[in-house]
């Protein structure tokens, strides 16, 4: 394994130098917040953030992805033949991903890559992606990663980990992929013991800063039907306005909808992120909607993450504790409270 340190401007230059070899996604400041964007077009990485507004899940599972294409033009030989649309699987790296968001790929993998189903595009994109994490020196007040299986300096799912040492970054490789990434970078220096020691102490300090905790130990033993018909859903869902903020901001929400879009005689089959908060999510062709009340939809979202996922895969919960839904829910529905309710007696 390889450990390097970079002066801050050296790291920016090193990433700039990589962008011709692979697609480099970095946090970019846009207005009041950061999001991951492809390096290039004069964009500058900015590592002064607690977390990006959106997780970088779209780099692997785009919000809209053209799956297939077809023509309805019967003068053409291949009319009505559905063909796979051209996709880009070239090497890419997400640099500056927080450990919680990296861990989300581990949780989501079971949906896209399991003995029964293999999503070829998700898998190939994951294979071509190097995740360079970024330890959280200052976790948000709404973070609770340490109670859901990861932490501010967790290395789960990561190929390398960056640590902000103040005047410079320490970058540690964790996998062969991460090492290969680091080997390609310029402007780095062999990390000294002081840097490694400082990183270790920052990690310990960061964990102590996470004061939000959620209980999870009872979830597995709970009876599904009892949780399903628990009286607390009325209260939990009361204020919900049925928007998709929580789902779209959530790094572990993976549901999608497949739509055909035809312009004149050319058609695309597109998959788009969907949200179980939308009534349309479960609307049947017959007009019947098995989840036509918001209580049912809110319950579904939490039951899926905290109970169905846990039961089905013997893993989870399907939450990484990033706290985005807590921060950005327009009506302050707090998943930490729901953990307590579902895990309670």
């Amino acid at each position: 394994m390889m450990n390097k340190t970079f002066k801050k401007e050296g790291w920016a230059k090193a990433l700039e130098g990589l962008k011709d070899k692979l697609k480099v996604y970095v946090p970019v400041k846009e207005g009041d917040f950061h999001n991951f964007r492809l390096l290039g077009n004069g964009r500058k990485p900015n590592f002064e953030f607690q977390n990006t507004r959106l997780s970088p899940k779209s780099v692997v599972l785009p919000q809209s992805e053209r799956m297939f294409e077809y023509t309805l033009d019967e003068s053409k030989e291949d009319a009505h033949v559905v063909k796979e649309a051209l996709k880009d699987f070239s090497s890419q790296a997400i640099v500056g991903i927080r450990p919680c968001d990296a861990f989300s790929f581990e949780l989501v993998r079971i949906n896209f890559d399991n003995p029964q189903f293999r999503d070829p595009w998700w898998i190939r994109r994951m294979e071509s992606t190097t995740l360079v994490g970024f330890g959280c020196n200052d976790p948000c007040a709404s973070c609770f990663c340490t109670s859901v299986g990861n932490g501010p300096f967790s290395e789960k799912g990561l190929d390398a980990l960056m640590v902000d040492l103040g005047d410079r970054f320490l970058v540690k490789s964790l996998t062969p992929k991460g090492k290969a990434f680091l080997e390609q970078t310029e402007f780095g220096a062999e990390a000294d013991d002081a840097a490694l020691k400082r990183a270790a102490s920052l990690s310990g300090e960061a964990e102590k800063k996470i004061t939000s905790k959620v209980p999870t130990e009872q979830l597995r033993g709970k009876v599904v039907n009892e949780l399903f018909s628990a009286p607390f859903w009325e209260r939990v869902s009361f204020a919900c306005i049925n928007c998709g903020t929580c789902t779209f901001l959530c790094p572990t929400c993976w549901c999608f909808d497949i739509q055909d879009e035809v312009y004149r005689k050319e058609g695309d089959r597109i998959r788009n992120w969907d949200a179980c908060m939308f009534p349309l999510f479960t609307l049947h062709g017959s007009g019947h909607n098995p989840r036509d009340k918001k209580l049912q939809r809110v319950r579904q979202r939490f039951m899926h993450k905290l109970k169905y996922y846990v039961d089905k895969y013997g893993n989870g919960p399907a939450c990484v504790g990033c706290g985005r839904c807590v921060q950005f829910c327009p009506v302050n529905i707090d998943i930490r409270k729901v953990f307590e309710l579902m895990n309670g007696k």
Partner: protein
Amino acid sequence: VADPVPEQEGVNPFKDVEVLEKKSPEEKRKFFTQLVSSCLRCYACRNACPLCYCPTCFVDESRPQWVGKSTDPVDTMTFHFLRAYHCAGRCTDCGACERVCPVGISMRQFTKKLNKDAFDLFGWEAGTRPDQRPPLDVYRVDDYNEFVK
């Protein structure tokens, strides 16, 4: 609790709209494209809006489907433009839409222009006269449009 605050005078609530009005159609297009470029189509703005009460929003219609569901900028623009026009003369500029937007879009840039038009053309300020119908909902003999006369 506190002393009365003097009524403010000479306040122009449409300063930003006036800046926008001076732009060329091309510049406006660029401005609006940029404005909604980060939209996730989560519809928090619509759902928080006290005006939006349709049982099924036009973007949720599937038979027929009026608007594409992908992140194609044309579809995103269609959503925002249609929503704004649908609120013309009824939006009170309460700002709920902007407050709930998870990606900080100032969608009041759309509705405020329409509020200004409602004021300039019909002398109408939404929410100030509960006994009157909004201007796009009534026939008036003094309407400025020739075609309705």
